[in-house]
């Protein structure tokens, strides 16, 4: 449960990156694409992010009671907070 705020922070960080890049692309594509195509592009951005985050998110949710697993989860939490600068 200690990792819950880390999951939220990581989601928010990554969603910020995704949304910003998607907006830039919408601008670049201009009027030459229709709504359906734009949605396919948005889905692409979400699919990449979700597939990439699946591993790190799973690593934050192995709590259990086994002390070794708990330590591994906390180590993963520290690593992700450092890598994605989540505590700032």
């Amino acid at each position: 449960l200690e990792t819950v705020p880390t999951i939220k922070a990581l989601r928010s960080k990554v969603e910020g990156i995704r949304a910003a890049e998607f907006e830039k692309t919408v601008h670049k594509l201009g009027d030459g694409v229709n709504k359906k195509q734009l949605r396919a592009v948005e889905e692409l951005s979400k699919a990449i992010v979700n597939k990439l985050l699946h591993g790190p998110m799973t690593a934050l949710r192995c709590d259990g009671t086994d002390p070794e697993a708990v330590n591994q989860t906390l180590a993963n939490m520290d690593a992700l907070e450092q890598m994605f600068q989540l505590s700032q």
Partner: protein
Amino acid sequence: AEQLQCRDALRAGKRLLKENGAAAMIRFEKALMLSKQLGDKVQERRAMRGLAASARIQGQYKSAIKHLERVLEISQEFKEFTGDADAYGTIADCYTDMGDFDKAAAYYDKYIDTMNREGPV
């Protein structure tokens, strides 16, 4: 005509969302009403997502969660699950903001189960 009105209301809501959650909410309510009248589940789900975002931005977490639960119900109703991972994750975020880490963890687990699926997430 109602289709256009529904789409315009959705657009206006999205535009307002960042500036003014309360004003956005009114547009999404309008879009929701029209979408129900039209029987358009996709638009109804979009309106519901807009309502959830408007509520969340105003700190009304319980209301946001309620709308997102409805988003998930609509997906079940017509067996089209685009955006479900987002909905689970956002419900969990709301519980995190409310300090209820147990419920947040349960919804993050659903989010993790859903996010790796094939097809629109």
